[in-house]
């Protein structure tokens, strides 16, 4: 899967900085580095999980890839049928056209549907935009989509307030599917739902992936969900990617201390499986004043002198022929030791 043919999106050096403005003339006094220098590949047909604490830049990363937030610098190469193009330098008109290939499902099903539109009204918008001018045709298409997400088709005449959270989220998914995209960003798509409904939506997403041959970027803070659904996982901390690996590899062979602490902090719903916690001290630092060196060093239980001054470079190790990338000084030194031996 590592050959370039299957790469759908190549992100290189992506930086999304929000300016901090102050004073009468709104001088820019600094930047919130929500996403800082991120490199990543999204392969065709995979489910890529993105995890991290709140404020670590998960959502900003997802939106920056879709150009819903204009990044400050970097490149996002998308593999179009006619060849790879950089979304960052595209004209607005072309970008609008490109949006039929990539869609997003938002976190909060209560605010992502317009309350004064019927479901038909909300769902027809993308169809009109992408050239389905005949109303009957649109109706037919929407009925199909609603069926695909296990909702009766006569729901399209109703208003969002008549639906429960789980139903709304399914409508949101149906809307994202309406333009037959290849790539969907699910931004905390199941976090706002009750546990019993969460499983329904997760299974629906898996089913749709098979049917429509989709690629997901699944953003969540819930590691148990991500372990269940994704092929590969990205762990983010303070705007940086700290670890990328296949799901099984990440849980079996955790390399970064942050990932380790994150996994150990999750309460596991299995009473026979109580593990030792690695408590982290303090909170996530402010991204306006990120710590020097490794961003994780003030909370890291294994912090060394080098971590305080030097920013670690990503290291890619090959484990069973699959890459496992980690951004930590400790891993490097361990590797060096192995080499010496």
């Amino acid at each position, binding site marked *: 899967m590592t050959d370039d043919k299957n790469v759908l999106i190549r992100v290189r050096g992506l930086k999304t900085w929000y300016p901090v403005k102050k004073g009468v003339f709104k001088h820019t006094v600094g930047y919130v580095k929500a996403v800082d220098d991120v490199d990543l590949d999204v392969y065709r047909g995979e489910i890529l999980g993105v995890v991290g604490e709140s404020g670590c830049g998960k959502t900003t990363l997802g939106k920056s890839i879709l150009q819903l937030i204009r990044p400050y610098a970097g490149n996002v190469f998308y593999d179009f049928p006619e060849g790879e193009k950089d979304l960052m330098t595209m004209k607005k008109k072309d970008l609008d056209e490109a949006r039929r290939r990539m869609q997003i499902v938002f976190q909060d099903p209560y605010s992502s549907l317009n309350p004064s539109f019927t479901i038909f009204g909300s769902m027809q918008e993308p169809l009109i935009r992408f050239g389905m001018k005949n109303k009957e045709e649109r109706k037919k298409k929407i009925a199909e989509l609603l069926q695909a997400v296990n909702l009766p088709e006569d729901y399209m005449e109703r208003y969002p307030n008549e639906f429960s959270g789980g139903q709304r989220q399914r409508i949101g998914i149906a809307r994202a599917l309406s333009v037959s995209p290849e790539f969907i960003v699910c931004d905390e798509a199941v976090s706002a739902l009750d546990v*019993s409904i969460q499983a329904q939506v997760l299974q629906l997403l898996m089913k749709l992936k098979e049917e429509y041959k989709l690629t997901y970027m699944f953003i969540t803070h819930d590691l148990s*969900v991500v372990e269940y659904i994704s092929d590969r996982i990205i762990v983010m901390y303070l705007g940086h990617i700290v670890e990328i690996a296949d799901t099984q590899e990440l*849980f079996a062979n955790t390399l970064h201390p942050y990932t380790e602490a994150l996994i150990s902090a999750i309460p596991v719903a299995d*009473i026979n499986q109580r593990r030792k916690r690695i408590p982290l001290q303090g909170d996530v630092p402010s991204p306006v004043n990120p710590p020097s060196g490794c961003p994780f060093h003030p909370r890291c239980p294994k912090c060394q002198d080098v971590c305080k001054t030097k920013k670690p470079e990503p290291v890619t190790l090959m484990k069973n022929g699959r890459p496992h990338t980690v951004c930590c000084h400790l891993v490097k030194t361990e590797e060096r030791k192995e080499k010496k031996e």
Partner: protein
Amino acid sequence: MERNQDVVVKVEDLHVNFYNNDRCNKVLRGVSFELKKGKIMCIVGESGCGKSVTANSIMGLLPDLSRIEKGSITFHYQGEDIRIDRLKRKGKEMRKLRGEGMAMIFQDPMTALNPVFTVGYQINEALLYHNGASSRKDATKKSIQLLKEMGIPLPKQRVKEYPHQFSGGMSQRAMIAMAMSCRPKVLIADEPTTALDVTIQAQIFELMLDLKETNDTAILLITHDMGVVAELADDVAVMYMGNIVESGDARAVLTRPSHPYTKALLDSIPVLGRGREQKLEPIKGSTPDPYNRPAGCQFAPRCAYATPECETGMPPESMVEEGHMCRCFHHLRKKEGEAND
């Protein structure tokens, strides 16, 4: 009547109704449980099942248009049995109990603190009201000590700061400090970590376990996360639409669930460490409208084992084993079958 010395709060057959717009919502329909000294009792359930209402009725914090229709809440305090359900909600006795005898931590720490007073002032308030401190100076000293116990760095400085200067985790610690200021016998925590990140959640749980050990406090923890139950609970009660459907020792309930709802709930959540092989079984349908409840067993419309008998009425309580209660006709039938064999 002989009474177990360890029982601090006893809730028996509690019925609570909410009235609004000429409609009546029977929120609690016969809830019984006991809180024991130095034990953590967890109530789990989906949103709208009456978890928070149970907590609020113990604290006497029910809204004005609601009434305890039936049942009793007995609080054993200073050698007396106090009937909380008979006290005036805003009366003198209730005000004395709140904070001194029992205290509550709310879900969202950012909104539970008053933004216009310093954190120190708000902790002092409880101390001064309940004669925990002789003067404001003395109270501040105690507040600093409390914040220190809760693991807030630089408590001397922090005590003079306002809530907006605190992060979510720290605000929750301040809330716990406030709740623990008069060393209450009972601590009620209503989803204390839902708004917090997992790493901060782990910190708060360590703190609560610590409090349980050192002060012998009875803790009522309300949550929707089965993981939290597995990690923390001594006893657990599973609620569904205003009834406790299964309760008992946490290990017994989680390893040998008897009620179809508990089973379905446990099957519908992804468990960390089980990877993609685990099969999720979503619960079909969604929770019924509280104004239009099913006639019999509340779970019958979603239950895989439902029979016509289930529509006749709520099943009686039956014991699965010592200290493990379940309310289900299906379970009763199974038991009878075993007895006949």
